[in-house]
Structures are given as structure tokens and as C-alpha cells.
């Protein structure tokens, strides 16, 4: 079934690429979304089953695919609006849509890959497509960001591949099932702990460029700054989930061995450094999208702390990723609207947003409340659980340090949000040719509402998915 899905995605993407026609773009995007949702339903109803020897519909992949499908709906809609606001050639537009379709397909492949080498292949493929999308506006900054993203991610991912190769030394693994996750988990105890440690370090370093945590986080920050807002929304949500998945799969292999405690310590260090970097750099930033990028860095740091804490922390880390995806995506969609009024992403060019467009202002305020984990945001619950887990594990100093740093980030975020909403009107704002579709903001309210609803009363189906995703760690 997954092969069918890939073929459909590939055919649609090539049609979009070769026709270079707006109507074809829209029809093909619609068809792709249909097949995406259809495949998603199929995979959710078949959880636990293999699809060919390389893919398995597992709970965590299923959960991330649902998030991916919801965000693809919103992203395609916002991309459509993005192209209405900005003038681009037909060639650029069709290149954008075909790269977007292929990006979503490769993220789906990463979500369900059972063979870790195939997981690597999918993640490398996402790098290629996303760098084309970052380059979409064809400016010098875009070129720089795309080059840095592509080159540093490629080198990082190559290093991660070295780590994956070390797993192939597990005894008793050969033939077609080499590097299959299931086999590796069963044979993990027989692998030399030294190799496990080296492999984990290499994979963590490599995939940190994708997940946007400490060693290689800089490229994702730059990428957020210049990418079109719908793509930024993808980079900091689904793509980060894919990076997390890469690290998490390796973590599940280690979880049953004596190396677990060591790996958790590494994650603890990575998490706390990420939050520190974010708190330092967010103070200096003057650009809304960079501020959101540093906020993503902070949230990924919290997720790493959740994995490091263990116990309820595992559950909370995955919950946090899901909630963060919805909130951060709506922030990026909203900033696209802000840009259509002020024609700038810099703090100094904005102000009085509430007066210009009150519905958008309300959405932004709600986004701020949700992203900084103020109740009733779902992120409050996940962060609370993560810190609870840290306290239970006696990592008190780290937890307190992280909480202090979060206060700094909350301050910066609050200051700049209030500046956008209430500061004096900047001088040269021209509202005459600004068109904002009311439904545009609705999509953000839906996503935020979902976060609040899932935080307050999560449906059984949702908690079951997370619980079965982490059952392998217990």
C-alpha cells in the first residue's frame, strides 16, 4: 500500500513540475491531499502490521502522520494564499508545489520506516526537498540559508549514517532483516556497549540538524528566517518530528541495554544546552521568524529533557511534540498575515496589529498564550509532566535551571508580542492593497483549539497511541 502511495505522490509531483500551470497545480495538490488522508486512515486502521519488509505501521509513526496530514491541509491552503499575495513565475510556483508534495511523501516514509537505513534514506530525502523550498524566493539570503541547510545537514546526516552502520555489527543479523528495528531491539544486549555509545552519539549529532537541537541547530534557525511562512511552519513542526523520530528509534534500541542511563545523561546535556542557547540568542534577535525559531530550539530542548527523565517523561515528550507542532504551525501561518500588512518581519516595523486586523491580533495573542505554556494550553500539561519527571528522577538542578531560562524566553516572547499588538503605529504602513481572507485566521483557531482540547480532555484513541508508542521503552 505504501508503494502505491509513493507512486501516486511521485506521479502527481512530476505532473505539477512539467505542466507549469496553476489549475494543474491546484488539482494535483487536491488529489495528493486526498491520497494523503486516505493513506493515513488506512495506516491508522492497520497499526502493528508490516507493509512490505521495510515498512511497519507503528503507533508513533501513525501519530506523527496524523499531525503531518492535518498540517499538510493547512500548509497547502496557506501556500495557495502565499502565492496570491506574492508574484512568482509559473515555473517557481510549480517547482514549489512539486517539492512540497515530495517533501510530505518522504516525511511519511520516514514516519513508517522499519529499517533504520531506510529511515536514513528518507531523512536525507527530506533534506533535499526542503532545501529547494527554502530557496524558493531566490534571494541572496535564501541562497545562503539553503546552501547552509543542505550542506551542513548532508554532512550531519552522513555522520549519522556512520552511526547506523555500527548497528549492523549486532550478532545474528544478516540478510534481508539487517538493520530492521525489530531485530536490533531484540539483539541490542549482544552489541558491544562501546559501539552502542559511539553509534548513539553519531546519530544524535547527525539528526540534531533535523530535529533542531544543540550541536547543529544553527542551520534550522537560518532556514526558518528566509523560508516562505508555510514552509517555515513545516520545518519547525513535522520535520522536527521526523528528526526526533530518527533519534527516538535509536533510543528504543538502547533502552533495553545498560547504556540507557548514559544515553539519558547525554540527552540531558543536549537538552539543557539547547535551552540555554535559545535563551541567550532570543534576547538579541530582532526578527519575528528568528524568535519563533529559537522558541522551537527551546521546545526541542524540553523534549530532550523529557526523554532524559524517563518514566512519565517519555509520554510527556511525545505529547509535547504533538502540541508544539500545532501551535508553532499556527504562529508561522499568522506571521504570514502580519507580513502581508507590514511587509516586514522585523520588530521595529510593526505595531498596533490589534487595530489593523483584530481577529489576527486575537489569534496571535492566543498563539502566545499557547506557545509559552500558559494554561489552558496543552503545552502546559506536557511541560508540567516533563518537569515532574525531572524532579522525580532527582535532576533538580537541571530542572530549576531550565525553568529559570524558560522565564527569560517567556519575557522576550511576551515583550515582542505586546509590541506587535499594542505599540505605536509604524510610519509607513499602507493598508490599501492588503487583502486578508477571514478563513485564513480560522485555520489557526482550529489548530489552537485542538491543542487546548487535546490538553484538557485527550480522547482515549490519542492516549492509546502515545502509550503504545512508548510501551517499547518500559
Amino acid at each position, binding site marked *: 500500500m505504501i508503494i502505491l502511495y509513493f507512486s501516486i505522490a511521485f506521479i502527481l509531483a512530476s505532473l505539477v513540475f512539467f505542466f507549469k500551470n496553476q489549475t494543474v497545480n491546484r488539482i494535483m495538490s487536491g488529489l495528493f491531499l486526498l491520497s494523503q488522508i486516505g493513506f493515513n486512515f488506512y495506516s491508522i486502521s492497520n497499526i502493528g502490521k508490516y507493509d512490505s519488509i521495510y515498512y511497519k505501521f507503528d503507533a508513533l509513526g501513525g501519530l506523527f502522520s496524523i499531525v503531518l496530514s492535518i498540517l499538510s491541509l493547512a500548509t497547502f491552503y496557506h501556500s495557495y494564499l502565499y502565492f496570491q499575495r506574492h508574484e512568482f513565475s509559473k515555473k517557481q510556483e510549480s517547482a514549489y508545489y512539486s517539492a512540497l508534495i515530495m517533501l510530505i511523501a518522504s516525511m511519511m516514509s520516514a514516519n513508517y520506516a522499519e529499517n533504520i537505513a531506510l529511515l536514513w534514506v528518507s531523512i536525507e530525502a527530506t533534506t*533535499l526537498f526542503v532545501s529547494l523550498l527554502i530557496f524558493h524566493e531566490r534571494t541572496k539570503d535564501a541562497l545562503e540559508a539553503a546552501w547552509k541547510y543542505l550542506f551542513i545537514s548532508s554532512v550531519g546526516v552522513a555522520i549519522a549514517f556512520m552511526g547506523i*552502520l*555500527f548497528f549492523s555489527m549486532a550478532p545474528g543479523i544478516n540478510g534481508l532483516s539487517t538493520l530492521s528495528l525489530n531485530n536490533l531491539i531484540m539483539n541490542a544486549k549482544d552489541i558491544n556497549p562501546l559501539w552502542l555509545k559511539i553509534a548513539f552519539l553519531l546519530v544524535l549529532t547527525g539528526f540534531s540538524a533535523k530535529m533542531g537541537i544543540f550541536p547543529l541547530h544553527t542551520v534550522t534557525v537560518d532556514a526558518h528566517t528566509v523560508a516562505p511562512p508555510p514552509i517555515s511552519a513545516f520545518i519547525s513542526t513535522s520535520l522536527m518530528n521526523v528528526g526526533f523520530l530518527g533519534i527516538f528509534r535509536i533510543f528504543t534500541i538502547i533502552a533495553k541495554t545498560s547504556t540507557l542511563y548514559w544515553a539519558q545523561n547525554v540527552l540531558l546535556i543536549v537538552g539543557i544546552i539547547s535551552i540555554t542557547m535559545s535563551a541567550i540568542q532570543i534576547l538579541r534577535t530582532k526578527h519575528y521568524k528568528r524568535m519563533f525559531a529559537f522558541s522551537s530550539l527551546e521546545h526541542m530542548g524540553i523534549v530532550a529533557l523529557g526523554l532524559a527523565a524517563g518514566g512519565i517523561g517519555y509520554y510527556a515528550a511525545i505529547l509535547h511534540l504533538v502540541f508544539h507542532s500545532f501551535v508553532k504551525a499556527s504562529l508561522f501561518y499568522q506571521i504570514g498575515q502580519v507580513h502581508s500588512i507590514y511587509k516586514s518581519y522585523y520588530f521595529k516595523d510593526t505595531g498596533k496589529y490589534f487595530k489593523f486586523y483584530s481577529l489576527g491580533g486575537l489569534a496571535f495573542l492566543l498563539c502566545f498564550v499557547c506557545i509559552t505554556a500558559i494554561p489552558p494550553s496543552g503545552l502546559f500539561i506536557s511541560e508540567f509532566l516533563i518537569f515532574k519527571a525531572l524532579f522525580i528522577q532527582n535532576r533538580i538542578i537541571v530542572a530549576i535551571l531550565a525553568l529559570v531560562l524558560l522565564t527569560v524566553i517567556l519575557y522576550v516572547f511576551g515583550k515582542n508580542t505586546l509590541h506587535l499588538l499594542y505599540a505605536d503605529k509604524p510610519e509607513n504602513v499602507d493598508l490599501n492593497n492588503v487583502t486578508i481572507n477571514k478563513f485564513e485566521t480560522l485555520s489557526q483557531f482550529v489548530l489552537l483549539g485542538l491543542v487546548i482540547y487535546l490538553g484538557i480532555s485527550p480522547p482515549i484513541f490519542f492516549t492509546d497511541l502515545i502509550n503504545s508508542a512508548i510501551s517499547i521503552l518500559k
Partner: protein
Amino acid sequence: MIDIFIILYSMTLIYFALAERVSKYVILLFIQGVLLFCVLFFSLYKIEIFDFIFILLETILVKAIILPWFMNKVRRQNQLKRENDTYIPVFYSIIIVVICLLVSFFLSSKLQDTQIHSKYFTVAFASVIFGIYFIIIHRNIFSHVVGYLIIENGIFLISLALGSKMPMMVNLAVLLDVLMGVLVLGIFVNRIGNTFESVEIGHLTQLKD
């Protein structure tokens, strides 16, 4: 027989540190591709004949023909000739590459793991480390792509050192991904060459707070 090719491979690394012309890099990449093909030819005799031919073919095609040819094309388009823009003089680079090789010799003799072929591992490890060093010392992004390819060749040798037998389809997918990656990197090098009229990394420093 394999020893000769391995030694030749490590000599190409030293030559990389020594070379000053960009065209030499392309030739060296071609030589590395051929050497990897030879190493593979003499080390993989135990597998099925079909797999054997397939793996050999993809190696020679991608590593020794397509990639060097493409890199040469990129080099011509950007009119890169003399590469005298390293941060560190050639003399020190040679010392460092030799130290790289020595360290990896000691490391692999220390490891004593029965599952690792230490012959391959020595050169592979040196190749990865040297690739990273190569990227760091160069100012121009074409050389960065060359450094990336050196790392990739090193990883290819590591996969031989660990005796990993990946499923055929996965193996093919990995190679195709690397190929696609280099093609896109090359396209971006051309773009940067056209936009900034130079491929120096110094131009790419606009994004900051």
C-alpha cells in the same frame, strides 16, 4: 591484493592535502572511485553473483564516473583553477593528514574487535576525519563538496570494514540519495557562483542577528 589498494587510497588522501589545483581534486575523486571499486571487487567474493555484479556496477558508475564527471562540469562552469585559498598552508596540512593516518592506525590496532576488518577501518576512519578537516580549511564551497565526497568515500569503506550487508534495495537507495545530494549541491554551487560571482564562503555571512 587488497592491501595495495588500501595503501593507494591512503596516498590519495595525502595527495588531496598536497594538491593546489582544483582539477586535481576531480582526478583524485575519480581515482578514489576506481580504488573503491577494486577493493570491493576483491573483498565481496562470497555473495551471490547477481548481487555482486549489481553492487560493483553501481559503485563504478556512481563513484568513479558520474560524480567526478559532474564535479568537473561544475568546476568548469565556475572557472575554478588554482586553489590557493586554504586557511592553513599546504605543509601543515600534509603533517595533519599523516597524523590522521597514524592516529587511526593506533586506534584500530587498539580496538581488537573481531568483527572489524582493521585494515579497512584504519583508512576509512582517516578518510572521514580528513574530509571534515578538508572542509574546514577551505574557503570555497566547491572544495566543501569535495570534502563531503571524501567523507562519503570513507563511510563506504567503513561499511566494508564492518562487513555490513544491507538489503539490495536499501543499498541502492542510499547510493541514489548521495548522488541526488551531490547533484543538488552542485546546482547550488552554480547558483552561488552566478549570484555572487564567486564561490567563496566569505559571501555567505549575511544571516545573523
